[in-house]
């Protein structure tokens, strides 16, 4: 080593050449990789401190369900922040939509229309009403931002008060419960999961999707004679991707139904209760499946559709977007429509999970959603942010909360830690960005 001469002060600070060239060959987004690393550190930390109770199938399964509703909203929040806007109303809008959907399934369909409870079509009508209403209300806010030129901070601050106020006015403090039996499946819970076989099928489909994406991408670049990844890097990516999917499914399937539920099931099926207990794999929870579906669609929209390209162009340079012939106002309005739709889906998940609509539903969710997007690398300067990043951000946030809960950290301390982490993460991110010359 030449340390004595002191001529290589910088080389020692850089990552090893081999790791660098490995990352270069893989062409992986290093920011995303950094976030996965940070998540791994958080998980291992909590696992060690809690004496091994964090990295259990049960806890990880719960973590996935708890992250789902925030992650779903964060995917749309990314697009809003990328196009230099903000939505502070999502928590209240979620509450309003959740309350309305509860009314549809528990009051209007069964009582007002006299169709009775727990009809097979109730859940889908309820969800449709929620999604359409979410799109309309989100779109209304979007029109105020894009066409009336009222700053989004103000419009959605107003929305935060208005939607919450409407809930209190009409609910009169009442909780609406119970909800439709099918609708409740949207909330997850061991009984509302895919089970072993379906989970493996989903996992296999995901693996095939990964492989197909890699092959199709390579073919497309080949056809135009562009440089492609080295073959081993391509294979390694595919193997790592599939492995991650299969491990996740395996973890979900390792979480058994709770005993009470399993006993009910055994009784209903006429199975004798075995001495060692009955192991029924839970599998992927339905809200998690929803989150994966939404994430996939939104990632596709953001990176492979015109609309997504326009959202990023507007964030990068609104004038350039306008001069390029992009309909900026319509695009901005659409981001708020999408946000409203995601609020409706998350509202369905949260009410279904509670099996009730309460007036405080979704309170302070806007902060969690914005934090998830920002921890996931979305920049308030506009133009930068990814959907997978935002989903990871939601998981990071939820991991912190659930880990601290496991350690019996009280709620005020949790808030202090999460707040500090948020600021530190954004500070670190902008430091790295500055250094990288971005």
């Amino acid at each position: 080593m030449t340390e004595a001469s002191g001529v290589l002060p910088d080389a020692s600070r850089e990552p090893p050449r081999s790791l660098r060239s490995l990352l270069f060959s893989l062409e992986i987004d290093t920011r995303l990789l950094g976030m996965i690393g940070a998540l791994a550190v958080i998980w291992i930390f909590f696992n060690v401190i809690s004496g091994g109770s964090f990295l259990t199938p049960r806890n990880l399964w719960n973590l996935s369900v708890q992250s789902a509703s925030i992650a779903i909203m964060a995917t749309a929040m990314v697009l809003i922040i990328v196009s230099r806007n903000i939505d502070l109303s999502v928590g209240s809008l979620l509450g309003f939509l959740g309350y309305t959907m509860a009314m549809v399934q528990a009051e209007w369909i069964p009582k007002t229309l006299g169709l009775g409870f727990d009809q097979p079509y109730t859940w889908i009508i309820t969800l449709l009403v929620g999604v359409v209403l979410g799109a309309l209300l989100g779109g209304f806010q979007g029109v105020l931002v894009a066409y009336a030129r009222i700053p989004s901070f103000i419009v959605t601050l107003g929305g935060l008060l208005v939607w919450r106020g409407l809930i209190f006015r009409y609910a009169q403090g009442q909780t609406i419960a119970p909800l439709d039996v099918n609708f409740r499946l949207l909330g997850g819970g061991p009984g509302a999961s895919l089970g072993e076989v379906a989970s493996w099928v989903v996992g296999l489909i995901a693996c095939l999707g990964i492989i197909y994406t890699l092959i199709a991408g390579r073919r497309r670049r080949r056809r135009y004679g562009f440089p492609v990844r080295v073959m081993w890097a391509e294979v390694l990516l595919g193997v790592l991707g599939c492995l991650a999917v299969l491990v996740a499914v395996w973890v979900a399937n390792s979480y058994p139904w709770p005993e009470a539920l399993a006993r009910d099931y055994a009784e209903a099926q006429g199975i004798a209760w075995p001495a060692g207990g009955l192991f029924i794999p839970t599998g992927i929870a339905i809200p998690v499946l929803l989150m994966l579906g939404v994430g996939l669609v939104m990632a596709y929209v953001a990176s492979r559709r015109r609309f997504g390209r326009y959202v990023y162009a507007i964030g990068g340079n609104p004038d350039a977007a306008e001069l390029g012939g992009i309909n900026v106002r319509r695009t901005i309005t659409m981001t708020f429509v999408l946000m409203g739709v995601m609020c409706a889906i998350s509202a369905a998940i949260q009410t279904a999970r509670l099996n009730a609509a309460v007036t405080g539903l979704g309170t302070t969710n806007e902060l969690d959603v914005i934090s998830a997007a920002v921890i996931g690398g979305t920049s308030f300067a506009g133009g930068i942010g990814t959907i997978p990043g935002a989903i990871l951000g939601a998981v990071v946030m939820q991991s912190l909360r659930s880990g601290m809960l496991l350690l019996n950290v009280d709620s005020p301390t949790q808030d202090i830690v999460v707040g500090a982490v948020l600021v530190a993460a954004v500070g670190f991110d902008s430091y790295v960005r500055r250094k990288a010359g971005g």
Partner: protein
Amino acid sequence: MTTTTATVPTVHPSAPRVPLVELRDIRVAFGGVHAVEDVTVDLHAGEVVGVVGGNGAGKSTLIRTLSGAHPADSGQILINGEPVEIHNPRDAKALGIETIYQTLALADNIDAAGNVFLGRELLSRFGSLDDAAMESATRKVMGRLNPRFRNFKTAVKSLSGGQRQSVAIARAIHFNARILIMDEPTAALGPAETVQVRELVAQLKAEGLGIFLISHDIHDVFDLADRISVMLQGRLVGTVNKADVTKDEVLGMIIMGKKPGEVTAKDIATLHG
């Protein structure tokens, strides 16, 4: 039987050619301030017209009515003698009018191909963005403009001034423009890149494009322009054939608003301080 001669589109050899573009009596006001007042300029195919004037003379505002960035309050735009309506950049592009803005109008967070095709993306089946096709086309047009350009995968934010300029030019020429507007095209460039842009202008002119070259500096456009339209305080001072005037005379128009014949020896002495 009577012959309907009026409908026969024959042009008498001695009749003046119909201009490719004519901006007629254009007027633009910003909140009561007249930025452009009753200005008329024209441009023929295969011709370069320099639009010059000091800061705030209204030359950019005038030309933005043609590019669709800011529609005129009144006046008429004719393409090949036909009146057209240009309300936004999309209308202009549909008429074959491409603009290279002084600011370049690039989305900094998007790569070269994304910027070249911004607003006119190529789509594959199912309506997805066909990034590979766009990159391929961009590589071709960049090969002609700037053969050493390699950064097709990075956001244009990290490119040099000259490279960014090439991207903006690539966007303007890729779509077979008939009319090209270049707003201060060499303002941010080094000497070598300036020469490149000049060569490109000459080449495009030879291909039959009409080019409006906008500058506050007469030296930028004098060599390239066939005619020069001078603006001062929102009004057109006059349009001259470059062959008929000296740089000093144009300078007199830019600064004093005097037509070439009106400029005295004393004025020229004043100009040179």
